[in-house]
């Protein structure tokens, strides 16, 4: 069994008796021990717990139990997800040592489908960042070039899959936090339609935008995970009714109209990214799609709209971290208010504080309507524009990230430059659309070959259409099979 096989292939080998789950998990733990010092993806590894779970799954298979869609598959969780009794610190000092008191709906569904939670991964603090550098505990490195970022905020989750340590990971995507790292690390990631996956047990950043989103080595694996964890949850009022839609099977793209929004190809787009995406669109055309330009003028305001709305929601959601209900506490000046201020000031990192301040400002009286009110109206207009566009096209396509992976530290001291990393992913988040990023080739940057991601967006609720086209694209390409050059693998070879 090769470490870079996708989850579907690994599961087939387990069911064919080529390996036991226990042996698979033992090899996964061995690979994490060998590769993770180079990549730094994992925050915690549940060695004993996952081996015990593997033995239990082997017994259940021997006893004739029907294997679930994720049977025996190692699964990494982002550190903002609740698995009872395990740490969920969200990459923040303020939650250091905090353990989840219950298991999230989507984690429980993955377990019920046979997955083996193997550990938690590093992330930007409270999912606020696009490079993984805003973590209090560790910054993952891109397996394609360890001097570069994995993207963020699901940085460790992407690095863990891209380096072949695990075939599957769950991340959260608020403004692109799964799609952008998937693109920069050369793997597949998908943010489903808002509400397709329950958010119960996902620590909130911006509740109207947050979505649990899988990272995998293929689009067929994304289908497999979303089919298992998606569907209505009575304990999440924002979850969409019904189960996750069944996969859409396509032999070609005849009859499909693919829109190319001009704002997805801005002037500053990296020429190598442009070239790889152009090649991908040509292939989709060869498969039968009709390609049309699409005008979406409101996209010009998407980044500002996103950062006003997301920070406003974050400032409210993070008000609960005040040294009382969760996490650590600093003494302060002896008063209750002083204890809260000191706890928050010492517990939060710079980017989180910056966003709390920005969010508090745009919600404060005298500024509310000029900022938050205006952003809410632009968001509604943007959703209207998307709905209008989807009356004429079936899918939209463009790059996921305007550049390939940038160097660690390159944008760390320039918040605006970092925010602009999200410019192509925030539109789908604001409109609640399903959007996937799949590998579409490598960009030559200096001496490095760095992955480029193709982003596919569908109408809200049409997740199966996005996945069907992504899957067909991968049946006709090999970009998703590319393996990064890891020193740990070369040393063993």
């Amino acid at each position, binding site marked *: 069994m090769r470490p870079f096989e996708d989850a579907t292939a690994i599961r087939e080998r387990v069911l064919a008796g080529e390996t036991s789950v226990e042996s698979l998990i033992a090899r996964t733990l061995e690979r994490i021990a060998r590769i993770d010092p180079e990549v730094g993806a994992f925050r915690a590894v549940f060695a004993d717990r996952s081996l015990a779970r593997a033995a239990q799954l082997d017994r259940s298979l021997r006893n004739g139990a029907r294997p679930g869609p994720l049977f025996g598959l190692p699964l990494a969780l982002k550190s903002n997800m609740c698995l009872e009794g395990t740490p969920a610190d969200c990459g923040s000092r303020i939650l250091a040592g905090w353990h989840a008191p219950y298991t999230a709906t989507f984690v429980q569904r993955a377990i019920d489908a046979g997955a083996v939670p193997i550990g938690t991964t590093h992330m930007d603090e409270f999912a606020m960042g696009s490079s993984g550098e805003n973590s209090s505990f560790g910054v993952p490195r891109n397996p394609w070039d360890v001097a570069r970022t994995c993207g963020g905020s699901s940085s460790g989750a992407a690095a863990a899959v891209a380096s072949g340590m695990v075939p599957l990971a769950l991340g959260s995507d608020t403004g692109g936090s799964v799609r952008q790292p998937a693109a920069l690390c050369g793997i597949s990631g998908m943010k489903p339609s808002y509400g397709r996956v329950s958010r119960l047990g996902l620590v909130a950043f911006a509740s109207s935008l947050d979505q649990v989103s899988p990272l995998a080595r293929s689009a067929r694996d994304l289908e497999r995970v979303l089919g298992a964890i998606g569907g209505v949850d009575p304990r999440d009022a924002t979850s969409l009714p019904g189960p996750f839609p069944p996969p859409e099977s396509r032999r070609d793209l005849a009859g499909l109209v693919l829109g190319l929004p001009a704002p997805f190809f801005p002037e500053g787009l990296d020429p190598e990214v442009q070239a790889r995406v152009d090649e991908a669109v040509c292939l989709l055309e060869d498969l039968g799609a009709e390609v049309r330009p699409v005008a979406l003028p409101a996209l010009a305001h998407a980044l500002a709209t996103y*950062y006003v709305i997301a920070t406003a929601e974050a400032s409210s959601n993070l008000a609960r971290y005040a040294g009382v209900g969760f996490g650590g506490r600093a003494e302060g000046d002896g008063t209750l208010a002083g204890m809260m201020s000191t706890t928050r000031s010492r517990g939060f990192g710079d980017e989180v504080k910056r966003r709390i301040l920005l969010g508090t400002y745009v919600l404060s009286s005298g500024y509310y309507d000029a900022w938050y009110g205006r952003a809410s109206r632009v968001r509604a207009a943007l959703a209207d524009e998307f709905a209008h566009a989807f009356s004429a096209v079936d899918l939209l396509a463009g790059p996921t990230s305007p550049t390939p992976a940038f160097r660690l530290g390159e944008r760390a001291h320039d918040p605006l430059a970092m925010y602009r990393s999200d410019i192509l992913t925030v539109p789908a988040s604001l409109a609640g659309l399903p959007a996937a990023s799949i590998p579409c080739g490598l960009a030559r940057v200096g001496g490095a070959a760095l992955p480029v991601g193709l982003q596919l967006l569908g109408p809200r609720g049409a997740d199966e259409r996005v996945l069907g086209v992504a899957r067909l694209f991968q049946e006709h390409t090999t970009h998703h099979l590319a393996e990064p050059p890891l020193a740990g693998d070369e040393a063993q070879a």
Partner: protein
Amino acid sequence: MADDLLALVRRTAALARLEVAPEEGARLAREFERILDAFRSLAEGPEGARNAQGTPPGPEPEPRMRADLPDPFPHPERLFRAAPEPHFGPTGTLLGVPKTVGDDA
């Protein structure tokens, strides 16, 4: 850098219950200025943008909001006076809850 921007950062930090050291305040004020300048394009957003409730565009009502001022937190003793009495029993510490109307059990 304008002093009013620094004052704005300090006032916002007080609302958010965050302490801002003098040098941190100056840095945050500079960053605020850049970020807000970059986001001013929102004011030129799409014409006819409907409001969040989906009603057609019209004259925008004057928002009626309370002033945002950090309130001094009540003294903890005042809060604790209203807390239920603890009872120490064989199963641990329990909090006594006053009987409610209709609760005859």
